[in-house]
């Protein structure tokens, strides 16, 4: 698979340029796509970046999920034609669209939360053996609605289907499971289904030790198919 990546800008997206920059740092060919485009450009991968699409009014991601570009993304996913990565708001949009299961609800604190967290690969996503279970990344989170929630019994199903990709861990207290900064069910920080991945933390903000960690670079490198 090549590394032509389309990054979608919705009105109110605000991590789009950070994401483009991060992907270019890693050598990807990046094109930016508008929310009202009816077709995806020729590309191997799509990134839905973070931000506050449509102000996150109504519910985070709810309005963007209906943008014309999401029809195109939905069709491409159905044909298994692209890999999709939703970061933060992008993850929320994928859930609202129904491309990923569950939904992202208000943090338990009721407040926006911006801080560094550790996440751990719980299950390798299909097609990305380089994300080895147990692998850890230190990444920032920055969201008000990041509590992953599902309907009753949904969590077990996600684990059973191999969709529980990333979970929060607390390496200091080293709690085995269940740590969650925001109220996510079973501490889930990211999930996958087919070639679609969504996660709340921001790898594009952790591209260099200057910014606190380069684990985001490592994460995106692996997502782009690079060797571990």
């Amino acid at each position, binding site marked *: 698979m090549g590394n032509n990546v389309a990054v979608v800008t919705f009105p109110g997206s605000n991590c789009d340029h950070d994401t483009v920059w991060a992907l270019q740092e890693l050598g990807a060919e990046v094109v930016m796509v508008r929310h009202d485009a009816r077709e995806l450009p020729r590309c191997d991968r799509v990134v839905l970046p973070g931000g506050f699409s*449509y*102000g996150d*009014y*109504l519910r985070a991601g709810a*309005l963007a999920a*209906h943008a014309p570009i999401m029809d195109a993304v939905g069709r491409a996913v159905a044909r298994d034609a692209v890999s999709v990565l939703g970061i933060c708001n992008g993850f929320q949009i994928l859930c609202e669209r129904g491309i990923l299961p569950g939904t992202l609800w208000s943090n338990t604190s009721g407040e926006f939360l911006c801080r560094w967290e550790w996440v751990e690969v719980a299950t390798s996503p299909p097609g990305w053996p380089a994300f080895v279970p147990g692998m850890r990344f230190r990444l920032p989170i920055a969201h008000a609605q990041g509590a992953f929630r599902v309907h009753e019994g949904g969590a077990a199903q996600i684990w059973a289907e191999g969709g529980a990709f990333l979970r929060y861990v607390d390496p200091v207290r080293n709690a085995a499971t269940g740590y969650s900064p925001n109220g996510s069910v079973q501490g889930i920080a990211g999930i996958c289904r087919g070639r679609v991945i969504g996660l709340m933390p921001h790898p594009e903000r952790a591209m260099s030790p200057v910014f606190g960690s380069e684990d985001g670079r490592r994460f995106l490198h692996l997502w782009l198919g690079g060797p571990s």
Partner: protein
Amino acid sequence: MTRYPVRMAVTLKPEVLDPAGQATLAVIKERGFGMVDELRIGKLVDFSVQARDPAEALEVAQRLGREFLANPVLERFDVWMEEDLRLGAGCDGE
């Protein structure tokens, strides 16, 4: 003492800007809901009050609205008690 269910609607005063309603309306109009208009988003708070009689429960609810649930600068609130409640043409959202 009886437990009275109460429903409170907290809505923005009519002259106050509702950015969420505005943005939502703009999107849904574009997506096939051109017939929808004047959309505004408020809050709905359901709770129960332990009280001697409906009048006392209502008074508690109104105090709660004034002191906590509604922001008097921007919002107004309306309270319904059991006997006012009628089931709407509901749907489970699935």
